[in-house]
């Protein structure tokens, strides 16, 4: 009895179930979603996988977990310095001492900001399993793989933030435009038409020459320029939904405008909103990477794909591993995002054709 009730209250809308089945049946998009989802989850705990700090240190009968939290000075492990412990050296030293002490390092033993220089050789160093730089280092001796992973996390967080802000503004203004129409609609239409002419990259470069851009200012400028696309889409779909009978019925029952928009129109345009999400994410990553590539993006030494691209181009002949790693990583991620988008669109709006031959 209770179980039945529970199942009922958690039961999904049959339409949603159908859409989910259709999405799963599109293999390209479904597997991309699985892989990308795993990558996002893993990147949230990137500190545990790719880090210069050890996961666990066992020293003189005590366990240390240095990954999160304050730095532990070298003196805590019987070393002769007060700055942060170099856990790779500590690991080597404990091995040498052959005592009970041990260090457990993450799979990739370098952080994104550490410069690891080998005396007598100039970076960039080529990929090697011996040193643990699986994809080599960049021109200042920072691990390419570590910067790729953290760069992915930053790019994705940035794109998600853009998406959230753009959609909030777009849904609010767009549904108002479509619902009320008239002068309000006309005025915003012209505004958007002119606003769309603003060359995004130009404006950001101008802003970047006035203030030092950081994560938040960059996001603010991009939202200020990027809200139009979703607004336009929402306007069109609200316009369509508004004339449908169920809205008329709600109006006849005396529903307020807010109620008609909030609980009738917007839930029915959700498929439009959802099918735009992957493409918006791709655009966000594209914009941030392009700006970083040109040197107008996040300030150094933030790990960023765009900065790695421009560094890679500088060393295109001497150190092709930099540019190849980052270009391939960007390509794979964006291709997966687009495959997901294509599949979502297909799932929400299956095109069934019948023709006679």
């Amino acid at each position, binding site marked *: 009895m209770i179980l039945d009730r529970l199942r009922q209250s958690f039961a999904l809308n049959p339409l949603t179930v159908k859409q989910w089945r259709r999405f799963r049946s599109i293999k390209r998009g479904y597997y991309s979603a699985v892989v990308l989802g795993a990558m996002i989850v893993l990147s949230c705990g990137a500190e545990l996988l790719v880090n210069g700090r050890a996961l666990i240190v066992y020293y003189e009968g005590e366990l240390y977990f240095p990954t999160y939290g304050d730095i532990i000075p070298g003196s805590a492990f019987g070393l002769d310095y007060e700055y942060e412990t170099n856990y790779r050296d500590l690991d080597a030293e404990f091995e040498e001492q052959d005592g009970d002490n041990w260090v457990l390092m993450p799979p990739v033993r370098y952080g994104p900001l550490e410069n690891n220089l080998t005396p007598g050789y100039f970076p960039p160093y080529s990929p090697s399993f011996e040193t643990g730089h699986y994809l080599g280092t960049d021109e200042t001796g920072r691990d390419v793989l570590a910067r790729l992973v953290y760069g992915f996390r930053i790019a994705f967080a940035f794109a998600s933030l853009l998406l959230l802000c753009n959609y909030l503004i777009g849904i609010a203004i767009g549904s108002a435009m479509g619902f009320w129409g008239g002068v309000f609609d006309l005025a915003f239409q012209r505004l958007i038409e002119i606003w769309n002419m603003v060359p995004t*990259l*130009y404006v950001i470069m101008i802003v970047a020459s006035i203030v030092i851009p950081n994560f938040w200012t960059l996001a603010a400028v991009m939202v200020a320029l990027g809200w139009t696309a979703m607004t336009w889409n929402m306007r069109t779909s609200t316009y369509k939904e508004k004339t449908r009978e169920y809205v008329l019925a709600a109006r006849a029952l005396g529903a307020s405008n807010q109620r008609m928009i909030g609980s009738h129109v917007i839930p029915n345009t959700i498929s439009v909103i959802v099918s735009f999400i992957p493409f918006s994410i791709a655009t966000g990553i594209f914009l941030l990477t392009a700006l970083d590539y040109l*040197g107008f993006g996040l300030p150094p030494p933030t790990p960023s794909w765009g900065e790695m691209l421009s560094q890679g181009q500088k060393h295109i002949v001497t150190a092709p591993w930099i540019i190849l790693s980052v270009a391939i990583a960007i390509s794979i991620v964006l291709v997966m995002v687009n495959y997901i988008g294509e599949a979502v669109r297909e799932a929400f709006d299956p095109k069934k054709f019948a023709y006679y031959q």
Partner: protein
Amino acid sequence: MTSYFIRRLLLIIPTFIGVTILVFTLTRLVPGGPIERMLSEAALAGADETATTSYDSQGGSTLSDAQLEDLKAYYGFDKPVVVSYFEWLGKVLVLDLGRSTRYSDPVWNTITDRLPVSIFYGVWALILTYGVCIPLGIYKAIRHKTAFDNLTSALVFAGYAIPNYVVALLLLTIFSANLEWFPLGGFVSDDFDELSGFEKIGDVSIHAVLPLIAYTLGGFAFYTILMKNSLMDNLAAEYVRTAVAKGMDFRRAIFGHAFRNSLIPIATGFGNNISLILTGSFLIETIFNIDGIGLLGFESLVERDYPVVMGILVVSSILFLIGNILSDICVALVDPRVKFGSGDAGQ
């Protein structure tokens, strides 16, 4: 028909005024403009050095006093905003876009000097895109849900997903830096003038291969899928069914009836190519060091050559507006249902 186009042309005016106001607002942000003066005063008051250091760290050379005076005179910083806007608009209308601070040539000449290169790439990219997408779209529509359809869909979507500058960098790494099949960039070789006529063509072509691939790859997905979907919509329509039912063979039903109608959505975007042709992608031009309008705009921005930046903005906005009108004309030519004078413009 004439009245339709006249009305359509008149609609440009409000948008043009809006765009020029926007560009004019941007000029207020250039060095020495009111905004920056305000910012630097604020920075001085707060003894906050970030504003000034960021200024130098972006690699731009600061302008000399004489150049600042020129800018002030051209944009009328000393006059009220409304007055200086109309004075500036008057100058723009007679194509006086000021003088480049870098070359000290008139901006209009600087822009037109780079036109041939941009037009060369734009036109070839256009031919390639339509030449590949229309046949591919048709073939995919007929072979819907086959292995060929799935494979090409995966390929064109991958091409669409990867940003064009990443494609450009990948191509450059693989084919220029490592395999050395193609040159590392530029429009022509250094010894171009000494080559014979035939060799010149070869030289331009070998320089053009990689940039053209990078230019066009991203556009394939859009037009191919558009062509495929609209052709399939039409194939499923009643009139094609009728034609087939009456005994017309399938090929003729496609090319005689469905094909022409499915060109309509393709035609709606055709006019916008004019602005793409001329402004190109400045990222690709930067990567391949091609001396087109895109690279000019980027260099001007980095070197703080603001008259050129604003000039390019004005020119490209006007081109965009003209492109919209060209699209309307294309649609009117392909689709006889467009009623001239019914005033569907503005949507």
